[in-house]
């Protein structure tokens, strides 16, 4: 399935990305940029949900420099008990000047009872 497209405003300023791991679940994550051919991975940000560091980074100052690139993320989410009916959500929000971009947020939501890897990606385009 092709990656969803997030459309950036070419004159909208820096593009920011925020990850929200919901339901107060534990998570760690990593964001990697791939070129338009899906090669040359470059890690741009990583973190975890249980520290005091914002789960937020500036992807680029110049939207034109990442046109057609892919942003891929891997997130490990882990529940705090083994209950079968626990919920998780991972939302990746793209913004420019505080405004969510078309195609954003990209959300994965579900139920789990043990740790899982949530992988997602988006292709960046000018809108």
């Amino acid at each position, binding site marked *: *399935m092709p*990656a969803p497209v997030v459309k950036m405003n070419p004159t909208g300023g820096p593009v920011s990305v925020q990850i*929200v*791991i*919901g*339901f*107060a*679940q*534990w*998570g*760690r*994550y*990593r964001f*990697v940029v*791939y070129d338009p051919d*899906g*090669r040359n*991975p470059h*890690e741009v940000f*990583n973190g*975890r*949900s*249980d*520290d*005091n560091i914002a*789960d937020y980074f500036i992807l680029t100052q110049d939207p034109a420099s990442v046109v057609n690139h*892919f942003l*891929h993320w*891997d997130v*490990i989410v*882990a529940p*705090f*008990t*083994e*209950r*079968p*009916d*626990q*919920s998780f*959500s991972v*939302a990746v929000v793209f913004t420019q000047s505080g405004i969510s971009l078309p195609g954003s947020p990209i*959300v*994965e*939501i*579900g139920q*789990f*009872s*043990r*740790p*899982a*890897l*949530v*992988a*997602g*990606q988006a292709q960046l385009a000018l809108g």
Partner: protein
Amino acid sequence: MYEPLRCIAAAILILLFGASTGSAQTATGGQTPSPTTKVVSGAFSTPEDPVLALLGVAPQAIFRPSSPSALGTYLVNGMDENGNLKTGLAIQTAPYFLLHGAKITLEEYRRDWAVRALSNVQLSLATTKGASDEDKSVRGAIGLRWVIFDRGDPRLSTKLGECFYHALPLPPVPGTLPSETGVKPLPDEAVAAWKRCLDEHKEEKWNASAWDIGFVPSWTSPDGSLNKFRSATKAVYSTLAYGFEHLNSEFLSKNAQIIFHARYIGDESVPIEGANSQFITQDSVSFGGRLRFGGARFAFSVEGLYTISNPDGGRKDASYRVAIASDIRLTDGVYLEVGLGGTAGRRNQNDEALLLTQIKWNIFNNPELWKSFLARDTGTR
């Protein structure tokens, strides 16, 4: 009947629901000589879901308050006070988590007391009906339970988070863009490491302080018709557990816990001693406590419960129950409780010696038990 203020006063401390509310419990044991001997189960246990306990269909297990989950729906069965088989549907949810949970981050949960408080409000709804053609009665109950604080809340443990971090590494970065996205299970060794983190947390926090409070009204219709629903048994309860974290005693903080409990049960139908299938309605207020020594795998406890009963058309009666008991963890979420105690002081009933034995399982915290429970009793969820 008791006045509302007395009901509120009764809710200051925790109360564990009484005997014979569990389903599929195992009771064994012999006779002891005192005036009468009775084998009971769950004499002082707190039900995880008080709604199910009130309806007599609760798999019970929990010793102390704990955090609820966003949503659970399940079918239940059990016996009412007349011994009739009941089946029903129960829903357990944490409304704030359900409606707003996707936006609650762990950092926010730890930082904001109000978020924690709202997240730990649990709402339970349950209905049961007779499982035979002769029994058309329907009962329903709504329960509200609030975990006011829980020092054993795993979400608050930075140590547990650190353990997760080391147990759950990210996979290597692939050289080309992965073609698949979505949710994937982790390797077994990572899951095992995560489980060890949880076990270590349980071992360390088994006796952590916590406090919850709950309110459960119920209704019943003798023939199942909506216009005949009438208010039935209601309960207010609270449980306060203290793990001696504030005392400068390593022994107590690691090995001991004291639990206070209080409850009010109104309009409860109880069997009349010596009368076959005859019941009387009564209100009761109980206060009790339990002192536990041990750990997550084994605990020895001394328990006491004082109850004042006020039957309709009768005189107030008071009784007390004391017991010594031990909880042995057989496997994850499954406990064997064995104890010995007695009930005394009742005006119209004989004193009793009690042999307490039961298998208790924490079905909600054990996926495998959960699956087997559903397969046996309902087949679906």
